[in-house]
């Protein structure tokens, strides 16, 4: 019988290795796998590359999540790949001090690179970033009279995601804007670990309403995490 539920955080985190690339879902505190991030902090993997929408701990606009900031504080992040990193933030300081690398990319390019990884598309052209600093060092080619930048897929060794409801096959739904990066990171993770607010019996989620089919999900941990808070 397929049962992707794990019974403990230790089981959820088992086997995550130093040097891994970790995709961390969520946007503006909604759909963030907070419990799994805490589990990763506890688990101890280091030298990580973290892919997350925002790495800058600031009041507004896609705040970084506490777990990512804590991993950076602990010196366990080698590199962040993100769309938003403010100078006046812990991540910004780590970058200025040379303790951490940062690759800051347009948000649509980040999303598409992650989706491409999940879809087996190794590279694609996009008009986004052409003629800007983002295109530096990248191949540019014209399509339809517009310069387009060649971008590559961005897979994760691990994806940490948050679902609203899950069943034992790992089928997932999300709540409202909690969807965000979760479905595409689930696709792109070599090992996809979901925390879920609710547990459903198999067959309870209507086949037409499942957003992430279980084929993309490896482990599910039930964490009744409560409602997201606004960024501090």
């Amino acid at each position, binding site marked *: 019988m397929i049962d992707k539920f794990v019974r403990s955080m230790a089981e959820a985190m088992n086997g995550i290795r130093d040097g891994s690339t970790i995709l961390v879902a969520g946007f503006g505190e909604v759909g963030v796998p907070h419990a799994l991030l805490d589990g990763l902090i506890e688990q101890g993997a280091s030298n990580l590359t973290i892919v997350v929408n925002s790495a800058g701990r600031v009041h507004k606009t896609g705040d970084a999540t506490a777990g990512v900031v804590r991993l950076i504080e602990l010196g366990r992040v080698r590199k962040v790949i993100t*769309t938003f990193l403010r100078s006046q933030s812990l991540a910004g300081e780590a970058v200025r001090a040379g303790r951490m690398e940062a690759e*800051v990319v347009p948000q649509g390019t980040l999303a598409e690179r992650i989706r491409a990884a999940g879809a087996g598309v190794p590279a694609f052209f996009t008009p986004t970033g052409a003629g800007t600093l983002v295109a530096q060092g990248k191949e540019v080619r014209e399509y339809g009279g517009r310069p387009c930048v060649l971008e590559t897929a961005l897979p994760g060794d691990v994806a940490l995601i948050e679902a609203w409801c899950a069943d034992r096959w790992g089928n997932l739904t999300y709540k409202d804007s909690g969807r965000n990066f979760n479905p595409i990171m689930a696709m792109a993770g070599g090992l996809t670990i979901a925390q879920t607010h609710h547990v459903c019996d198999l067959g309870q989620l209507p086949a037409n309403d499942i957003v992430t089919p279980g084929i993309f999900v490896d482990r599910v941990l039930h964490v009744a995490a409560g409602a*997201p808070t*606004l960024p501090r």
Partner: protein
Amino acid sequence: MSDTAQGFRPLGRTGMAARVAQDIPAGWYVNLGIGIPTLIADHIPAEREVVLHSENGVLGMGPAPQPYEENPWLVNASTQRVTIRAGGSFVHHADSFAIVRGGHLDLCVLGGFQVAENGDLANWAHSATEAGRQIGGAMDLAVGAKRVWVVMEHVTKDGQPRILSHCTYPLTAAGCVSRIYTNLAVLEVTPKGLVVLDRVPGLSFEALQARTEAVLQQA
């Protein structure tokens, strides 16, 4: 000498947002960027159906919630709690930017640091060497939407022009802006250069030009 003393009154943030809202027709799909653009939503009358998109996968955003209808799982791209209208829907981030990049938005209104007379936009960094880089979704929106309007103060806090012959800050996208709304005027980006569509009452064309580095043309 203050502007007011010169016989005209610059718009405030609310006034600028209201001015942009005037020009958004019913039926458009619109993304409103962070800052002043976000305020525009409050000035679109409820009976004028404009479908608001947010980068985090929300289509059909409604106004800020009343306390009794707050939904912690529903935020906009500025991570403010919002509502969703009847007819609204949610998509994931790749689909959300398929909407953006695929040319499905009628309009995106962005904030700006600088706009050049050819429509170049700079709105994410003051220099190429900053450690911080706040790109977010602006580059995708700038290349993807059918129209890009910029709303910003006409000059910087210390009086430097923002509307230039060439941008000096790193670009968000080249040649993307079609219209500029400032606290002083509305300018159209045309093949012949910047054309003044509107000025605040009491502001002469010459006074506007004096606050603008790029050459302006009368409509």
